Each structure stands twice: as structure tokens, then as C-alpha cells.
């Protein structure tokens, strides 16, 4: 179990680094890096959601942008109506309270994930990938062609939504909030993984027929995991909308789904802090190589290729050794 101890150390280092970097930036007044760290935290949160489905359950969803985007639009639309003082529909008012927005985003994403899951979990492998992609694309084109909320142009959030006791317009305070939510989500992921539910989910990933012969319903367990996964990613979408103060169909595009998968693979599939490592690498590439060349994604692609070929466990696997996913 030496590897497990090493992984714990890596996890602590990542958790501390994600806090210390923006803290230093705060002290020396470099808000740009605080924004980046917040972006890492929120992308990692979305990754934690996907990691539940992909890492523990082996469900390679190529449509998690649907939940991310839905969460984003919940934040955007509710803020839009709160700002203009118009009802959303049937007299329901908008809101600029993050807690309410988050709850709505979580509930709606969970419902959407339950519907998409119920239909797509009847398939597996490449068909599952394609069906989840198809659902996300449907939503993408829907937002693109629906003029009420900006359509193609997207929807700005003029003033960031509020959280009691914090001034979310100060990026440092928004970071602290995002960091806290990320840590809670990681804790939740850990609880799920160590619970009977997690064991059943991993058993199904390894052999669904064998699990069924022992009384585990593969469909039921996977559907519950997929819905929970969508909820977390949807919450991340709502938070991302508030960070960028802008929602657009791009949040629902297939590239976003791909980005989330890349985050998981770079960090380490199924690893507790894999999404944090992956999101960190992705954002670092975007910023540093993006500053040098427009084609930074080419270099990211090379790194991804290297990881897939030579370091299947991602960054955490490279440092802490292979785990059960090897």
C-alpha cells in the first residue's frame, strides 16, 4: 500500500498548490492568476462529476457538456430575469442568489442526466459514446437557435450572482467559494467510492454479468451514478457562468465534453484528485502555450497522446504508481 500513501501525498500537494498559488497572487495583487485558479477549480469540479461516471463506472460520456451548459444557462437565465425584473415563466421570478441557482442547476442537471442515462445506458462502448454526444449536440443546437436568451451570441451576466457573506465580484472571494465547493465534491466522490454503492459500481465496470449474478442491478446502479455525475457537472457549469459572467452555446459544444474527458485522462482516470491535476495541466497549457502560439492545442494533443501511450494512469498515476485502473 506504499502507492496509496504516495497518492495521498500527491493529493495533499495538489490541494495545497491550488490554494497557495492564488493566495500568493492575492498578496502580490495579480488577480489574473486568481481567475486562473478559480477556472481550474471549477473545471476540476466538472471533472469530478465526469470522473464518477467515467472513472468509477466506466461510462465514457461524450456528452457531459450538456450538463455543464445546462448549469450555465440556469445561472444565466435566472440572473437575466432577476436583472430585468421579469418572470422566467408562469410568474416564477429570476434570482441572483447563487445558492438557489445552484440548487436549480443541480436538480435540472440531475433530471436531464436521468433521462439521457435511461436512454443511453441501454447501450455500451462506442454506441454509448455516440448517443451521449448526440443528446449534447441536440441541446447545443437548441440553444443556438433559441433567440430568447441570445441564441448564438450568448447571454451576459452583468453583475455576478451573490452568495451570503461574500462579495463575489472580488475574485479572491469567488475563488475561496469555488475551492470550498470543489473540496466538498471531492469528499463526496471519496465517500461514494468507499461506500457499498461505489464497490457495486466498480464491480459492474469490471464485469456487469458477474455483478448481476450477485444481485446487483447494473442498469439501476449505473443510472444513479450517471445522474449524480450530471448533477456535479451541472453545478460546475453554473459556477463557470458566474466566473466568466457569460453563457453561450459554446459551453454545450462537443469540444467542452472532450475537454472534460481530456482533464480526466491527463489527471488520472478514477483518481480522487485526477480532475484537479488534469484541469491544472489543461489551464496551464491554455495560458502558457496559448501565449506563445495559437496552436497550443496541437502540443496538448501530443501530451495527451504521450499519456495514453506511455502513462495510462495520467499525472497521478505517473507519480503515485498504477492503481486498479492500470
Amino acid at each position, binding site marked *: 500500500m506504499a502507492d496509496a500513501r504516495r497518492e495521498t501525498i500527491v493529493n495533499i500537494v495538489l490541494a495545497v498548490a491550488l490554494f497557495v498559488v492564488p493566495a500568493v497572487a492575492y498578496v502580490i495583487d495579480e488577480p489574473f492568476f486568481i481567475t486562473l485558479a478559480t477556472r481550474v477549480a471549477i473545471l476540476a469540479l466538472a471533472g469530478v462529476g465526469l470522473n464518477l461516471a467515467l472513472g468509477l463506472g466506466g461510462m465514457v460520456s461524450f456528452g457531459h457538456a450538456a450538463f455543464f451548459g445546462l448549469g450555465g444557462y440556469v445561472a444565466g437565465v435566472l440572473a437575466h430575469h432577476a436583472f430585468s425584473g421579469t418572470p422566467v415563466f408562469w410568474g416564477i421570478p429570476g434570482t441572483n442568489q447563487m445558492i438557489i441557482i445552484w440548487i436549480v442547476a443541480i436538480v435540472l442537471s440531475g433530471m436531464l442526466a436521468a433521462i439521457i442515462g435511461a436512454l443511453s445506458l441501454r447501450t455500451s462502448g462506442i454506441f454509448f459514446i455516440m448517443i451521449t454526444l448526440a443528446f449534447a449536440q441536440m441541446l447545443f443546437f437548441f440553444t443556438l437557435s433559441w433567440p430568447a436568451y441570445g441564441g448564438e451570441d450568448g447571454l451576459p451576466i452583468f453583475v455576478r450572482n451573490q452568495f451570503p457573506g461574500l462579495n463575489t465580484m472580488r475574485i479572491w472571494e469567488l475563488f475561496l467559494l469555488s475551492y470550498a465547493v470543489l473540496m466538498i465534491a471531492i469528499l463526496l466522490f471519496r465517500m461514494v467510492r468507499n461506500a457499498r454503492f461505489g464497490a457495486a459500481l466498480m464491480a459492474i465496470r469490471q464485469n456487469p454479468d458477474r*455483478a448481476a*449474478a450477485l444481485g446487483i442491478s447494473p442498469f439501476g446502479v449505473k443510472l444513479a451514478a450517471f445522474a449524480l455525475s450530471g448533477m456535479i457537472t451541472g453545478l460546475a457549469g453554473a459556477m463557470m457562468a458566474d466566473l466568466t459572467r457569460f453563457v453561450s452555446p459554446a459551453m454545450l459544444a462537443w469540444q467542452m465534453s472532450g475537454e472534460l474527458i481530456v482533464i480526466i485522462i491527463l489527471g488520472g482516470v478514477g483518481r480522487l484528485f485526477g480532475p484537479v491535476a488534469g484541469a491544472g495541466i489543461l489551464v496551464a497549457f491554455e495560458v502558457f502555450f496559448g501565449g506563445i502560439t495559437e496552436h497550443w492545442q496541437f502540443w496538448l494533443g501530443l501530451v495527451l497522446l504521450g499519456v495514453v501511450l506511455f502513462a495510462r494512469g495520467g499525472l497521478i498515476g505517473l507519480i503515485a504508481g498504477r492503481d*486498479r485502473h492500470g
Partner: protein
Amino acid sequence: MNALLQIDGLQVFYGGSQALFGVELEVREGQAVALLGRNGMGKTTTIHALCRMLPSRAQTLRFAGRDLRSLSSYQVARLGVGLVPEGRRCFPNLTVTENLIAAARPGAWTLERVQEFFPRLGERENQYAATLSGGEQQMLAIGRALMTNPRLLVLDEATEGLAPVIRSEIWAAIAALKQEGLSILLVDKSLADLLPLSDHCVVLERGRTVWQGPPEGIEEEVKTQYLGL
């Protein structure tokens, strides 16, 4: 009539070829029934059909008063059929404890009790199942089935390929389970170990039940003709 498991006229086809032509089998509450027959006569196929892991036809396929014919395999398991599959089939990349809790259902068998029953599973609780010895994996497979708190334990070749010392350990465990009143359906090649434990024997030959009766009733003729002894 308090048959826990009742199978009548069970037929199974693998594609175009028929494997079972009418298996008859009954297990009563608290009984240990031995399913006998040479290799390839349909013992494992019968078990797979019982667990609904294979499509099958049957006049009767009942367990605990429920018709199994329209159920899926996880529903059969939840009714109380605890399968210990041939070749053990643990989840290699789960730890011993994860293997045990994954399919656990509430009842008298808890993690603590299984660890008490097989102390080695307690000692190795955080080890991956893939790193266990064959005997330990077999204990894990039995423990995993017990954790589902079954009404009928189905053991398919539970001592296959194990060292003699381990085999006698496993047989002792099975005897202890029988002593507690658990109903058991047993498949094994070692008649010397199997028969003393069994209350009733069912002999299969080419996918049919050809003989049944108490173990002491197995005559030389049955042994030579159907069991290849």
C-alpha cells in the same frame, strides 16, 4: 411440498445446438443437493440457466415460490440464490472488502461475520482480489455469496484446482454452513468429499436427469455408467 427450488423440463440451446434436454432438479429447505455427472453433461449450464444467465425453456423454474422464467439474473440473485461461480470469478481490481460489500444485502451475514468465518479475508481486507491465492479467492467468492444472505448457496466446482489442505478447509466451511441449515446446491468432481455432505443426488447425462436419490443409493451401475468411476 416445501421445495425451495424446483426445476422441471429445463432446456437450453446454445445457438442451434441443444445443451439441456429436460433437467429435473429439486432442492428442499435445508437440504444439500449434489448435482453429478461427467464433464460436459450440463451441470454448469443448469446452474447458469437457474441464475438466468442463459436463456432457457422450462416447464417449471421456481424458487421460493416465485417463477424465475421472466426474471433477469440480478432479480434471481436478490430472491436469494447465492452463486459461487466456477473459477471463482472475484472482481480482481477490487479489494477483498470491496468484493464483499459490493453485492451485500441485509441479513445475518455481515462483513464481521464473514471475516470471522474466513479469518483470512479479514487479514487481507485491503488487498486486491487479484493478489490472493486460489484458495483465498475461493473463500472470497463464497464470502461474497454469503454477504448477499442467500436462501440457497450454489457452489459450482468450489474446490477445483486447489491444494488438498485448502480443499479440506473449504469442505469444512461448506459442512459448517450446512450445519446451520443453509440450503446448498453442490457441483464437484470429488465424490468422496461431496457425497457425505449431500442429502440428495441428481445425476445428469447428456443434458437430462437420468437418476436421482439418496447418496447411499448410488449403485455401481450408476457410477460406471454416468459418473465414469
